[in-house]
């Protein structure tokens, strides 16, 4: 059932933390940002965006605040916490290790 461009398990968290690490955003903006940075390679279903955000919030990695948007509407803005930054570093390091290892494996098999 898995599509080839399905997000690797857990990477959505990493992406979200990374995006929010840059600036506080509301859900819609996050989904736009996701689309724009990852292009068509990584498709994030909008259905899994909010559960993921809420999970990160419950973990204490991001925190939410109701603010006005540019066009004067109320929206829930998420921003990263200190705890989240630490988590981001850890996950990013993890990811680098993993991807390095995998590309190594791939190179071996190609050689």
């Amino acid at each position, binding site marked *: 059932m898995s599509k080839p461009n399905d997000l690797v398990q857990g990477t959505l968290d990493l992406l979200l933390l990374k995006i929010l690490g840059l600036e506080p955003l*509301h*859900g*819609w903006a996050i*989904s736009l940002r996701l689309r724009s940075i990852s292009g068509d390679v990584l498709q994030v*279903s*909008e*259905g*899994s965006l*909010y*559960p993921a955000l*809420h*999970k990160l*919030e*419950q*973990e*204490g990695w991001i*925190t939410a605040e*109701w603010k006005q948007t540019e066009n004067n*509407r*109320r*929206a*829930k803005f998420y921003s990263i*916490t*200190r*705890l989240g930054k630490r988590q981001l570093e850890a996950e990013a390091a993890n990811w680098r290790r993993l991807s390095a290892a995998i590309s190594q494996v791939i190179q071996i098999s190609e050689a």
Partner: protein
Amino acid sequence: MEHWWYTLPLRLKSILRGRRVEQELDEELQFHLEHKIEEGVASGLSPKQARYAAMRAMDGLEQQKEQIRDTRRIHWLTDFVDDVRYAIRSLRHTAGLTAFVAITLALGIGMTAGTFSMVDALIFRPYPVSQPDDVVTLVSTTQDSSFDQLSYREYLDIRDKTNSYQGVIANAAMEAVGFSAEPGATPRIKGGMMVSGNYFRVLGVEPRIGRGFREDEDQVPGRDAVVVLGPNFWKHEFASDPAVLGRTVRLNGKEFTVIGVAPETFPGMLIFGHPDFYMPLAMARVFSTNTQKNFFEDRDDRELAVRGRLKPGTTLQQAQNEIAVLAQNFEHEYPKLNRGRGAAVHTQFEMRTRGDDVNWKFGVIFVTLGLAVLLVACTNVAGLLLSRARSRKREIAVRLAIGAGRFRLVRLLLTESLILASLGGLLGVAVGYGVVAWFQSQQNVVFMTDLPLAIPFRMDTRVLIASLALSLLSALACGLVPALQSSRTDLVNGLKSADVDLPGRKRLWGRNVLVVAQVSTSLMLLTAAFLMVRGFQHSMLDGTGFAKDHLLMTGFDPRLMQYNPAQTKQFYKLLAERIREAPGVRSETLTQNVPLGTDDFDLDSVAFVPNGFQMPRDRESYTSPMNTVDEGYFETMGISILRGRGFRDSDSSEAPRVAVVNEQFAKHYWPGDDAVGKHIRLENSAGTPVEIVGVAQTIKFQNTFEKPMDLVYMPLAQHPVARMVLLLRSDGDPLQLVQSVKDVVRTLDANMPMLHTMTYEDYYLNKAVKGPGIAVNLVATMGAVGMVLAIAGLYGVVAYNVSRRTREIGIRMALGATSSDVLRLVMGKGLLLVAIGAAVGIVMGFGVEQLMNSMLFNAGGIDVIAYIVVVPSLFVVTMLAAYVPARRALRIAPTQALRYE
């Protein structure tokens, strides 16, 4: 930790402001959705299409929300809240049943909590000092008694020659002390306790104000007249005035300086008594009650309770070994006084559960009975819940069918019984408070004394926790089995009919056990109640052997006014002479103790050797209780002299010594022979000879439950005692003589206090009727509650069982069974169960009777009446319970019965 800083507010918000959280979620998703739609419209879709596409992209709003809710991690709580809500709703539907169950549990838990507060106070409550576990009690032991106290000399030796303790302390019994704050005031009776100089320091009690005793204040007899006040006394007598320090008060007429006040946290080391003040042991001459002995010198004047605080790391066994060696040394050094005398160290628990102490036995018996009531209550509730669960079978089957997990269902059902138990527990604590309040209200009946004694039963934290634990336990006990059973429902059958009996014996077996348990436990309770009540009645019917009416009693203690023995003698002589002349006085007497006027601790005794008796090798003398009376006693109290004579004026201090013994004593030492004319020697075979001149009728002397016991009477003239009670026999109302007595006393000494002035009849009623009545009432109440609960439960279970067989009865009738066949069938089963229960109950009843007989009083044998009354009534109830629904089943037409659900 930082994690919680972010997440805790979120969780709390989810729990406390659930609606708000939901709204925000809604708003957030809506916001997203609107943008998405705008985006779709912008790319050329119609608004409707755009909306549809947006919804699809989001995988459905409601699913989203549900998924998000799951991230909140308060599942367990919301589920529980749902369960509670549901349970409350379903319990409210059956409000009558709920109330019945809650009240039933409340009675059980309340009775247990109330009685547990007793045991807590009597056994478990630690000393109110720092590190109470280190404090141990040292006792002297002989062949006859394992818990003798120690003398002052022995205390000093133990204090100075042991290494196991951080300190060894001693105190005398709390005793009546004449207290006056001002020089001229008439002394009032207060409770004072003599303690060693290191008492407060070793116990780790810091005075509220001022200081405790110094060690040097306990070294020179009579030098340091200082006093430390108890917290309550300070509050009531001196209105908590700190200026009391340095004040002079008079204790037994001697001036003492107040040096400190004990803290509120230290009401004293006794279970019942809270001393009003403490004096150093070195002031013993002011307070000593025993004129025959020298407190500071006599090694056999054993009046002190001795305690030690163990050094850290020292075991009880080490302390034990050490004291045993010391006791052997005593025996070598003082062979005459310490022959066969050992010593032992005991913990507080050991002291409070010792064999000769009735307090804790009462407690244990009451708690046992309380638990029995709880057991009956629990079986009752279990039976009801079982029936309830079965009639909800269809509901449960539906739940299972639409996908409820079994665990989830058991949880729901257990939540219901938890709510029931909490209700029962809360009410039960209220009942417990009621029981304790009732005990407290009996205070004046229990303690007819001027001393500061109080019933120590309280619903403290420990008791509350225990009650709570009991409620939870009973919830589990009552609820688990029905819950497990009903969740094991066979779906197909369960959905088809509301209440069918599945083949299989196991299920019925459980209910049968309930019936048997109920019958037997309630029978045991009733047996205990009957034994108490009838033992009490017996003791009333037996009579006491003395007159109670037309008697006025009032006590005197000339020591309170610092009288010496000669003054005391003169005072009593004049008092008797003058009151005799007063109008309305038919006769008068002075006695050391009125009948039923002694407790264990102030029972006087005499050591003696019957003349010519060869004493066993290991024994120097026998002892017997003793009372000191004057010439008018036997006549005034209406006690007949069976042989010989009573006392006369001629039995003066110069005349040869004489005694009167009771019939029990005469039979004991000279069976089949006349005791009159025989001699006993005091202390040992070389002691003063005393001639027995009369044999008096045996009376109840300490309490109305007692077995006949030995008693020796000594004439006051030959055996002077300071504290005496004046008894007057009146023509009319005894209280009219009070003024005459006051007038006479005023001519002798205006300041002499009159203690305990009341009619003897009042005293007797309190002491012999109302006092024991407390225990009798309590046990009778528990018996009655147990009986009512058992009957209700029995009726419920049996009736329910029969009504469930309505269809079966219909079939039987359709097949030609007669009504008597059917009645026999349904009743036979119930009666068999009751019979088994009764058999078990009778055995348990025997056990409890044995226990009560051996522990409290020898009411003797087994009370058959209890069984004759109780067993048949249980049978009648069972028959009725089976008969009523059976008759209803018989009345309906077979066709209808077959269609019955």
